[in-house]
């Protein structure tokens, strides 16, 4: 199996000072051809550095990068079959839309007319028709994004890179563009590396998610795996909301959490563990079944309620989609766990 992109033990430190801290501290992963892999992490975790090393804009301090089985570690961006969409789009402000899109072809020596007709076609593919002669500054944010996408696509790159492509758009447009990027990726069978700090975006578009923290890969897997079975406290907290409670794993594989007893889907060694519970995994029982909690705070968010209960385990944050049977402040209820949204991670 050859990967579209493969990192082997990549480290990176900025500057020539040997005492400078590492931005990336030994990372190995592979991106399969024709899939979309998201690199997710908080700011400063090294995810953008990883992306720029795939692009060839930075060179690693140590380690090797392979593309289609070829060692490209020392090659510049022009010698790799990659293309990238920038966070700020980086549209050339002195060129109009079609000139921007055909730039890559012109630089590779394609004649002007051929380049122009391919540019117009690519623009149509990303759903932008009739704006060819506009300047980038005369376009809306979404339109600029389509131009940037067309410009990156026109070279038919082996690997397409996205650096937080949706961060400059408003919420509604963000979802449209997200779906469009995914659709184009699947239609053209592109190999894509996608950097973001937004976990819901990552869950929605990815075949594979790599979560990075502090220059290292914390965990990688499919969106379901990442959300349902986080391997560490950090991943559990970063992939959506989760509250962590100290628990005790028994020799039979079950875990006790205060008065509650759960059977985790992962295998855990006996001893002290932490249980990560998603706020939607709590079931509210008016009959008092489960752990007892008294309602302290309540917020209405339109499609659901947020409750905070005072319990023996401390404050518990619960999301309830039940909009008809609303609880009153001060009421005592029982809380039990559903069979999803609960995972056990090692105590640290």
């Amino acid at each position: 199996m050859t990967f579209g992109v493969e990192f082997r033990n990549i480290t990176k430190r900025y500057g020539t000072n040997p005492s400078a801290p590492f931005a990336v501290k030994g990372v190995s992963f592979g991106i399969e051809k024709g899939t979309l892999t998201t690199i997710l992490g908080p700011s400063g975790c090294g995810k953008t550095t990883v992306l720029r090393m795939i692009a060839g804009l930075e060179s690693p301090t140590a380690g090797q990068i392979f593309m289609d089985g070829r060692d490209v570690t020392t090659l510049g961006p022009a010698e790799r079959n990659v293309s990238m969409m920038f966070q700020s789009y980086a549209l050339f402000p002195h060129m109009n839309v079609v000139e921007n899109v055909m730039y890559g072809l012109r630089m590779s020596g394609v004649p002007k007319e051929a380049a122009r007709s391919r540019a117009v076609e690519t623009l149509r593919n990303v759903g932008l028709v009739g704006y060819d002669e506009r300047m980038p500054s005369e376009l809306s944010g979404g339109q600029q994004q389509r131009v940037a996408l067309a410009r990156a696509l026109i070279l038919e790159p082996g690997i397409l890179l996205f650096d937080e492509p949706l961060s400059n758009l408003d919420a509604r447009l963000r979802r449209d563009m997200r779906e469009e990027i995914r659709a184009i990726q699947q239609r053209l069978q592109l190999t894509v590396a996608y950097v973001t700090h937004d976990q819901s975006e990552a869950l929605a578009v990815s075949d594979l998610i790599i979560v990075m923290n502090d220059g290292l890969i914390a965990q990688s897997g499919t969106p379901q795996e990442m959300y349902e079975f986080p391997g560490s406290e950090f991943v559990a907290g970063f992939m959506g909301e989760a509250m962590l409670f100290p628990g005790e794993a028994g020799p039979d594989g079950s875990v006790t959490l205060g008065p509650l007893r759960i059977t985790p889907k992962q295998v855990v060694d006996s001893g002290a563990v932490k249980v990560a519970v998603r706020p939607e995994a709590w079931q509210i029982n008016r009959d008092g079944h489960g752990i007892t909690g008294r309602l302290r705070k309540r917020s209405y968010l339109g499609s659901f309620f947020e409750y905070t209960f005072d319990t023996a385990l401390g404050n518990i944050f619960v999301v309830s989609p039940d909009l008809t049977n609303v609880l009153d402040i001060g009421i005592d209820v029982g809380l039990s766990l559903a069979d999803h949204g609960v995972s056990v991670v090692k105590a640290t």
Partner: protein
Amino acid sequence: MSKHPNKAPGLWLVIGLASYLLFPWYAIQDTAWYYVLPQILGGSETANGLMQALANDRNWLLTGLLGMGVAAAGLAFPAGKQQGRWLLAGGLVGLLGLIGSGFLIGARGWSFEVLNTSFGELAINQFGMGMGAFIALLSLVVITAFGLARIGYFKGDLFVAAAVVCCSALLALFIAFPVVKALSGAFLTEEGQWAATAIFQRISDSRIWNLNCLGGGVQCGVAWNTLFLALAAAFGTTVLGTMMALLAERCAGPRVQAPLRVIALLPIITPPFVVGLGLILLFGRAGIVNQFLEYAFDITPTRWFYGVLGILVAQLFAFTPIAFMIMRGVVQGLAPSLEEAAQILHADRKQTFFTVTLPLLKPGLANAFLVGFIESIADFGNPIVVGGQFSVLSTDIFFAIVGAQFDQGRAATLAWILTLFALGVFALQRGLLGKQNYTTVSGKGDSGIPMPLPDGLRRTLNGVVYPWLAFTLVVYLFAFVGGFVQTWGRDYTFTLVHFKTAFGIEWGQFGLVWSGAAWNSLFTTLKLSGLSAPLTAAVGLLIAYLLSRTDFRGRNTFEFVALLAFAIPGTVLGVSYILAFNVPPVELTGTGLIIVICFMFRNLPVGVQAGTAAFKQLDKALDEASLMLRATTAQTLFTIILPLLKPALVAALVYSFARAMTTVSAVIFLVTAENELATTYIIGRVGNGDYGVALAYCTVLIVLMSLIIALIQWTVGERKLGRRKAGAATALVTPA
């Protein structure tokens, strides 16, 4: 992909070979290289490199070809470290061979006595390097750079490697080499022997360091004179410039903006001594003021204005606009929201100004002070025009070289002091402020409104700045009128005779005759300035690009050396050129080329500053996007960066052209009867007391320059951005 990795090294090897075949190797005396192309196959002086080596027994020239051969062998390897080593070795062999032989073998055989005694007299000599040698060296430098890039330096980027190495070589050849050579002259005794004590004897000369003036004596040493003058001038210009900037940006309405802009432009398009001339017409012995005093109170006119007072006033007038431009940029860059924040926190306007606004201006103030100081110590025109008996370093260096004394050692010693002053202030500025920079132009919009200045301050500004502006106008007006009257002080009848003397045109027997005395110098100035301006702009922007956009091992050293080079006063550079470039291997004295090169390296900082400022406003993602789309670094530079850099390009072109037209201090050493420049011609006229012609010439220069600047601006054109109107304010021409 169509781009072959060995295309660039191959091309430069071909260029290197061509230099051995197509061009005369040595510099040709009294004519240009292209006139002797027919004699390229023979002649001891005019032959090409190959013939020089084989037929004329100058076989050391073959080292260059040897180096190119080694590099060519390297091209057989695939692009990689192995090839890099071959290229590097070839380049270095060629460079060492050619440069080494150039320094060792001069116009009279061996250049050093030691070699004569150990190897015997050398029968064959060699001349200064010419076109062929220059191109051969250039190609070897580029090949060396390619070798470094292939080995892995400069991230493997051939273009960046070549640019960095070439720029370094240029700075080394035309700044470091001459300055070091000239300054080392201070260590030579009268007999030409090395002696470390020589400089101490010279430097402890009482003419340089005595402090008699403090104790009531006649005059202080020349070093103290220069220092006191420069400190006073730098302080005065900084204060006045800041006041003007605050007034222009924070108090005055749009009505005052236009005249202020003109005032700011004046020192760029006028030779620095025009102010001095105007002041002489006002306060000189035959000036209006003295005439009036004589008429009204019967006071005999004296030369009271000449001396330190005259120079200081003239420099204040001449350099305040420069401080104004620096400070205006800084005041514009202050984020109004900071002042609003201070006011929200219950500071009144006065407190806000003194606790927030003024401290934020600090880096700008230091910068303006530094520039004022350096302009003052390097100024040559004003001290020579209104200085009288008051001597400063720049004029003393001139008289040590040009005058009857012809004392190179003394000139070198004075140049040392001048350089140390400049570097001292430079180091002080960088050390005190470090990398502090509060200029708060960020991508985020700042919707705040600048705070109006406190009332007391505003009254002070109005009271100082408007009279000052009026006075400036009067001085320039007098300089203008002076060219149109018969004899200032005696006969005020209107006349065009001065213009006729300088710029007369007649119809002779064979057509147009440029009979005016000044035409020759005007044409030379235009030609040389015109040649140097595009070169300056190109190299300046290239250095700015390297400094702000690339990252390579040794970048900090490169930046430091480049900045240091710019702190060297023009007078020192001029002296260095005349001392360093009058013998082979680089023999340029007396040519127009040396003036062009001097203009270029004198004005390079302007190009670099304009470029660096512009690069700061250009998002780096644009370059990267272009690289990702498989453009090479060179393609990116020409298709993306240059078009977006047009305002900076115009600024660099205009400034370097204008400064070349008006500079005096550096080129006064380099002009010859053949290559007379406008400014030196005018200084000569003033020396003869011929004020009418001098002022007429100044007027013509100012008018001509305004026209040319307008033309450049119109040709290069505006940056095409299609930006909405609100964002248009960023496309400003950045002041130097």
